């Protein structure tokens, strides 16, 4: 009898506790939601205020420009293939910037990652230093380095390549280091026992283990870097972005060229996206199959 009432007491207490908890959670959630919504609204209002054209006004004009470009491109549709061919070299340059930067960035990122991973680092005491270096490389937007280098080296693909490579090295350095942390140390120890030096241990013992993962991350980065290299072209570093800016600043009369560039860029990005998606799926699945057999 006493036991039973005690149990009921417990039950009511638990229920009250639970109701109080859910209510508190609901209140917190509500406050957070209100805060978030008001932040969004206030932020939107501020942005709208500081913009040259208003949101409501712009909304009506949003299709004007694409329509202008399209009508002109359609009028001169006979010239479109010629334009596509004409801008192909610029597109190749943009792709080359992205590819070279990805390659250099991957190499740099690999070195940074190996130097900042516990158990693999050449100077274990300097691990925090290399981590900070990677952090800083990652934090600098490409445009900053590109603009400064354009001033020194002159316009062209090299500043963009260096800028993207630095950022890529930082971004991949962090990801690679996370992968390298899970590496099996047995091959490394085996190599060490044969007298292999650090570079040999890394190249023969670690890289084969992490290779597929590294390549898959690098491919992902390549997609991102194509976009980045197009944007950097727009601010003065060669490639298709530069051509786009020229066509744009000319305005009406050369919209057919702008349309050709839009098409090239769109098709390239989608194609590379698809290709790298497939490749990455094969890389990760291949690695998994290899591990199980």
């Amino acid at each position, binding site marked *: 009898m006493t036991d039973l009432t005690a149990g009921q007491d417990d039950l009511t207490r638990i229920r009250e506790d639970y109701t109080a908890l859910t209510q508190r959670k609901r209140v917190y959630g509500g406050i957070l939601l209100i805060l978030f919504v008001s*932040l*969004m609204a206030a932020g939107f209002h501020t942005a709208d205020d*500081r913009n040259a054209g208003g949101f409501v006004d*712009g909304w009506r*004009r949003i299709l004007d420009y694409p329509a202008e470009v399209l009508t002109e491109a359609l009028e001169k549709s006979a010239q479109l293939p010629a334009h596509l061919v004409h801008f192909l070299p610029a597109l190749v*340059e943009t792709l080359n910037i992205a590819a070279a930067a990805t390659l250099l960035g991957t190499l740099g990122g690999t070195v940074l990652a190996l130097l900042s991973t516990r158990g693999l680092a050449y100077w274990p005491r300097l691990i925090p230093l290399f981590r900070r270096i990677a952090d800083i490389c990652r934090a600098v937007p490409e445009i900053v380095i590109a603009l*400064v280098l354009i001033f*020194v080296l002159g316009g062209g693909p090299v500043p963009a390549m260096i800028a993207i490579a630095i950022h890529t090295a930082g971004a991949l350095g962090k990801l690679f280091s996370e992968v390298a942390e899970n590496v099996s140390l047995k091959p490394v120890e085996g190599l060490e026992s044969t007298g292999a030096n650090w570079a040999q241990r890394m190249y023969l013992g670690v890289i084969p283990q992490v290779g597929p993962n590294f390549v898959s991350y690098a491919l992902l980065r390549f997609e991102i870097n194509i*976009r980045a290299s197009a944007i950097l072209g727009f601010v003065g570093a060669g490639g298709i972005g530069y051509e786009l800016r020229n066509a744009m600043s000319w305005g009406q009369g050369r919209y057919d060229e702008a349309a050709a560039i839009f098409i090239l860029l*769109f098709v390239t990005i989608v194609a590379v996206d698809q290709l790298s998606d497939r490749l990455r799926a094969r890389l990760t699945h291949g690695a998994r199959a290899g591990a199980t057999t």
Partner: protein
Amino acid sequence: MSTATTDLDLIHLKHRADRLFTRKRLLGFGLPALVLAYLAYIFFAFDMPGLAARANWDNGRTLVADSYSYKTHVTRDNRSGAVSVAVEGERKGTWPDGQAPDWVDLGETTVIDLENGHIVRFGPKTVEYDIPGYGTLRATPSRSRGVVTELPPGEVPDWINQSKNRITVTTEAGRLTVTRNRSEVFRYFTGWELFWFTLDSPYHGLSPAELARRAANGEAWAIWHGFWNNTMWRHGDVAWAIGETILMAFLGTFGAAIIALPLAFLAARNFNPLAPVRFAVRRVFDFVRGVDALIWTVVLARAFGPGPLTGALAILVTDSGTFGKIFSEALENVDAKQIEGVQSTGANAAQRYRFGVIPQITPVLLSQVLYFLESNTRSATIIGAITGGGIGLLLTQAIITQKDWEEVAYYILLIVLMVMLMDWLSGWLRARLIRGGSDKPRKTRDASRRDAFLLP
């Protein structure tokens, strides 16, 4: 008989092993060779050999020197005889009439102490420069005969550059230029000039302790005002610009998430049985993602004009495609058992979504959105440079002037700090919102793999 077969097997095995080794060796040497060949092609395609000729190393030197040091100009107008002192020769950094820093002694003959025995005297007629270890150099500008110079005996050293109408002396202490119209001395200092207060502020040149004392005496607001409205560095405007950049990233990222979430339900196989609708929504995601942020920025800038709203919308549009793709994939991976469990308690459709689906996808969604918030801060800097908003605009403007490199260095520092701060903030929020709620980490191996896909 049996030995023959084993022999055959052995030979066969050896062949296979050999082939494997050859293939591995080919791959081992071929891949690096391919990379090297490509880099060699790039080397010539990008005209690296010609780069040295095109590069302007003087620009580089100015840039580096200017980013951590500044010069003060002491200028004498040789027609009126008036002497003015100005930081970087800018109007905003000019000392008031009759005032000068303590190393300049104004008077009939203005004496400028460049330290270590280097002394320049602007006399009424003649400019004199005492150079230790060389002697005294005299230059007399005159209207009819250009600049008449008197050098100490001996060969003219290469740091003195003279012509009929001009003499330039560059030493480690500074630089003297005399032309017919004016005489000018540059003295170099380390640091960022007038960073805290400009010359017209009453607080310029006070020590931190003195400032603290005055702040305690009720001048804190005036001191802050002087700093915030510094006309050289415009701290207030810079803070606004940083705020604008973060605002673009915030509005773009969360706006995109809000738009993408309902669309993602339409694109997920287990929530939308209508295959054509699914297909259409997915193609919309692909299209929006494929039309790069650059093109969206250009198109939107035409409609909305330059400013932060355009940047925010460009991020919003591009990312809603990416988010849609990620979210729909997350939704397709939702565990149906949990929804059935909720359904078994008699929950209706709305409750099933609320308690069966949302808790499962929230961690993935939030962590994705927060990842993007950080990376979009970087994108907002870049987009700001194109559309004209935020810190990106200030940076490009400062670079275009090609002389305010100390400001460029300051902006770069601020951008790096801003991105690192957002990185830290997004990591902290992720930890709080996703792992803080439950005892055990929800992030499985699979989830972390998915995160990697998104790294922007």
